[in-house]
C-alpha cells in the first residue's frame, strides 16, 4: 500500500513530465483501472493503479481508501457521485460522527471482502461469523457506525449478533453486559407482563384504561385537545416514592422538575376532584408525581371514574360505527394510549401502595365494590 501511496504523490510533483493523462472514471461499483505511463526520468515504469479517495473521520484524521472498497458503502458512494467529493485532500469526504478510524477500518475490511463478486455464499457466511467475533462494546460501536454509513448488510449482521447476546439472558446479565443503569427497581416488581393470572390490581388497571378512554372521547367532543409530545419519564423511582411519603427526595433530580411538581402539588390542594381529572388530561406528562402528593384526592378521582359502569365489550359495537368516526376514535385512542403509557409507572406505583394497605381486605369480583373498599379508609 505504501508504494502505491508514493505513486500517487509522484504525479502531482512531476506533472510536467507526464505525457499521458491520468483519468479515473467510475460507475457506482465498477472501477476502471487506468494505466499510468511516465516519461523522462522514470524509465520504463508502467504501473497499474487503483484509484483512491480521501476520507476524513470525525476526529479530523485523513486517510486514503481504495475507491472500489469504499464505494460499497452507500453513504460514501453518494458523496462521491452526487457531490464529487473525495478526489483530493481538500475535498475529503467527511464521515458522520459515529465513525471513528477503528470502526472505519473494520468496515473497510468487511467491504473489501464482500465487494468481490467471486465469493460463494458459504464463504461469505463463514467470513461474517468470524468477523462478528469481537467484544460487545466494539460490536455496538460498529453497528452505530455501519448505520450512519447506511451499510445495511453489516447493520443486519451486527444487530443479529447483538440479539444473540441478549437472547435468553436475565435482565441483570443484560444490564451488566451493556452497562445499563438499573433505574427501575420498584417498577420491576410491578412488571405488568408477569403472568399473574388473577391479579385484581391488573384487572383494576384495565378498567381504568377503559374508563379513561371513554372520558377522552367525551372530552374530544367538547373541545380540542392538542396531542402532546411524549416525554420520557426519566426521573428516579426514589423520587416518586418520596413524593408519596411526603419526604424530600434523596435521588439526584433536576431542580426544574422538582419545582414543577411542587407547583402542581399546591394546585391540587386547591382544586376539587373533578378538576383534578382535567389537570390529569391536559398535562399528562406533567402529572408524573404531582397527583401522588395527595393520595386522598387521587382516590376521589378514581372513585369518580368508576361511578358509571365500565364498558368492556366494545368489540361488536365498533363494527357498526361509521368509518370516518372510527378513524377519529382510533386516533384518539392511540394518542390516549400513548399518554396513558407514560403514566403507567405512576399508576402502578399508586395502586401498589394502596394494595399494600389493603392486603387484609377481601377482594370482591365486583370492580366497583373493590374500589369502594380501597377508598373508604383513605378518605379523610
Amino acid at each position, binding site marked *: 500500500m505504501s508504494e502505491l501511496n508514493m505513486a500517487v504523490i509522484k504525479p502531482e510533483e512531476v506533472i510536467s513530465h507526464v505525457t499521458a493523462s491520468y483519468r479515473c472514471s467510475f460507475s457506482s461499483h465498477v472501477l476502471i483501472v487506468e494505466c499510468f505511463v511516465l516519461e523522462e526520468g522514470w524509465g520504463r515504469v508502467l504501473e497499474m493503479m487503483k484509484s483512491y479517495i480521501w476520507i476524513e473521520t470525525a476526529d479530523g484524521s485523513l486517510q486514503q481508501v481504495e475507491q472500489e472498497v469504499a464505494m460499497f458503502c452507500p453513504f460514501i458512494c453518494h458523496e462521491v457521485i452526487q457531490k464529487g467529493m473525495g478526489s483530493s485532500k481538500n475535498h475529503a469526504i467527511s464521515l458522520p460522527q459515529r465513525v471513528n478510524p477503528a470502526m472505519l477500518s473494520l468496515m473497510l475490511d468487511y467491504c473489501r471482502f464482500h465487494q468481490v463478486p467471486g465469493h460463494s455464499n458459504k464463504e461469505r457466511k463463514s467470513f461474517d461469523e468470524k468477523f462478528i467475533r469481537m467484544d460487545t462494546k466494539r460490536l455496538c460501536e460498529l453497528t452505530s457506525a455501519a448505520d450512519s454509513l447506511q451499510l445495511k448488510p453489516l447493520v443486519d449482521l451486527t444487530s443479529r449478533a447483538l440479539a444473540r447476546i441478549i437472547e435468553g439472558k436475565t435482565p441483570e446479565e443484560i444490564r451488566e453486559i451493556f452497562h*445499563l443503569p438499573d433505574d427501575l427497581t420498584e417498577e420491576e416488581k410491578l412488571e*405488568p*407482563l408477569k403472568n399473574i393470572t388473577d391479579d385484581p390490581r391488573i384487572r383494576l388497571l384495565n378498567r381504568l384504561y377503559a374508563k379513561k378512554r371513554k372520558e377522552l372521547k367525551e372530552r374530544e367532543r367538547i373541545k380540542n385537545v392538542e396531542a402532546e409530545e411524549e416525554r420520557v419519564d426519566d426521573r428516579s423511582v426514589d423520587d416518586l416514592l418520596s413524593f408519596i411519603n411526603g419526604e424530600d427526595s434523596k435521588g439526584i433530580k433536576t431542580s426544574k422538575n422538582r419545582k414543577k411538581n411542587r407547583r402542581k402539588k399546591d394546585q391540587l390542594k386547591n382544586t376539587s376532584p373533578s378538576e383534578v381529572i382535567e389537570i390529569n388530561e391536559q398535562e399528562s406528562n406533567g402529572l408524573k408525581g404531582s397527583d401522588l402528593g395527595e393520595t386522598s384526592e387521587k382516590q376521589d378521582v378514581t372513585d369518580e371514574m368508576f361511578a358509571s359502569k365500565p364498558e368492556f365489550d366494545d*368489540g361488536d359495537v365498533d363494527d357498526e360505527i361509521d368509518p370516518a368516526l372510527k378513524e377519529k376514535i382510533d386516533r384518539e385512542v392511540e394518542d390516549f394510549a*400513548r399518554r396513558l403509557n407514560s403514566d403507567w409507572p405512576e399508576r402502578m406505583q399508586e395502586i401498589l401502595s394502596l394494595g399494600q394497605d389493603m392486603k387484609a381486605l377481601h377482594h370482591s369480583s365486583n370492580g366497583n365494590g373493590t374500589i369502594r373498599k380501597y377508598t373508604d379508609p383513605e378518605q379523610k
Partner: protein
Amino acid sequence: MQMGDVAALDLISDLPQSIIEIILTCLPIRDAVRTSILSTKWRYRWATLTELVFDGTCVTLCNDRSLLEKSIVNFITRALFLHQGPIHKFKLSTTYLQCCPDIDQWLLFLSRNDLKELILELGEGDWFRVPSCLFNCKKLTRLELHRCEFDPAPNFKGFSSLRSLNLDQVLVAPDAIECLISSCPVLESLSLTYSDSLDLNINAPNLKYLYLEGEFKDVCLENTPLLVEISVAMYMTDDIAEHFEQSSSCNFIKFLGGVPLLNKLVGYIYFTKYLSIGDDPGRLPITYSQLKIIELHQVSFEDMKEIMVVIRLITNSPNLTELKVSGSSNSLAATEEEYDLDLWEKECPSDCSFNHLKFVKMTDIAGVPHEMELIKFLLKNSLVLETMSITPCVFLKDRKLSMLIDLVRFRRASDQAEIIFVQN
C-alpha cells in the same frame, strides 16, 4: 446511584430506534418484551415493534394445559395492549392455544393497525372461525391460515394488495376460494393444502408460485400466464377416481396449457395420473421453453397414458436441465403383457435432443420395460448429460442383474455421462 457515570458507559441504549427494532425483532417476543425492565430508556422500546411473533416460547411450560393456555392469552393480550403504533406482521403459531374468543378481539385490534401479514396456526381442537374483521384489513399482503373456517362476507371485494395466500386445512366453500383468488389482483404465490375436494378454476393473472396438496376434483389453470413454479401433490379417493373415469376433457391442457413461462414443475402421488386423464392432447400447442426442472414422482410406467404424459412433457421442454422421475410400478404384476415399445419411436420426434439436460435421477425403478425405454431414450438424446442416477426399488431382487445388463448396452450421446447405480 451515581447515574452520571453509568450513563457514559451505556453501550447500547443510544443506538437509533431503527437498529433497536432490528435487534428486538431478532429476539423471541418474550425476550423482547422483557427488555422493558432493563432501564427507563428501554421501558417502551419494544412497544413500537411492527412485527410480533407469538409461539410456544412465549410462556414457561407447565403441565396444566388450561393454565398454559390462559397464560398465553394473557401474555398476548397485555402485549397488544401495551403496544404502540402500527403492527405490520402478526404471527400466532402454537398448538397450546385452541380457538377462543380472545383471538377474535386480537384480530379486531390488528385490523385497525395497518396489518400487512397475518399468520395463524392454532391447536388441533375446534377450528377457529375467522371473524369478519379480517376482511377489513385493506393492506394485507400475506395471509396464512391453518385449521380455520373461512367465510368471506358476500360483499367482500378482495384484498387488493395480497401477494401471498396460504390456506392449509381450511374449511371454505370452493366458489369462495375461487372468488377470493380472482379478486386479489396482485396475488403472486398461492398455496392450498388439504382443503376438501375442490373443483377449482384459478384465475390469477400475476400468479408466479402455485403449491397444491390434497384431494382435488378438478383443477383448471384458467388464467395464470406468469406462473413460474408449480408443485402439486394430488391424493385421490375412490369418488374422485370414478369422477375421472367419466371425464373426457383433457386434464393436461387444462392444467399445463397456459403456462409458457413455467420454470419448475413438481408432481407427487397421483399428479401424473391426473394429467393423463382425458383425451390425448396430441401435439402440444405449447412449448415450455423456460422449463428447466421437472420432477415427477410415483409415475406408473405400466399405464400408457401416464407414460405419454411424461413423453409429452419432456419432448416439449427444449431447455430442460434436471429431470427426476420415480416409479410406482407394481413389479409383481403380470409380465406377460404386451408392451408397446414402438410407442417411443412413434411419439417422440426423431430429431428430439436434450441440449441442456445434465442431471437425471430415476428412483424406485422396477425394471419395467417402459422405464428402461425412458432411460434409453434419455441417454441416446442428451448431449451434455453428466449424471444419470438410478435407484432400484427395494422389492427388486432378482431383476437387478438383468437391469444392469440392459443399462450397460444403452448408447450414450454424451461422453461425460456417468451412470450411477445406487445400491442400498
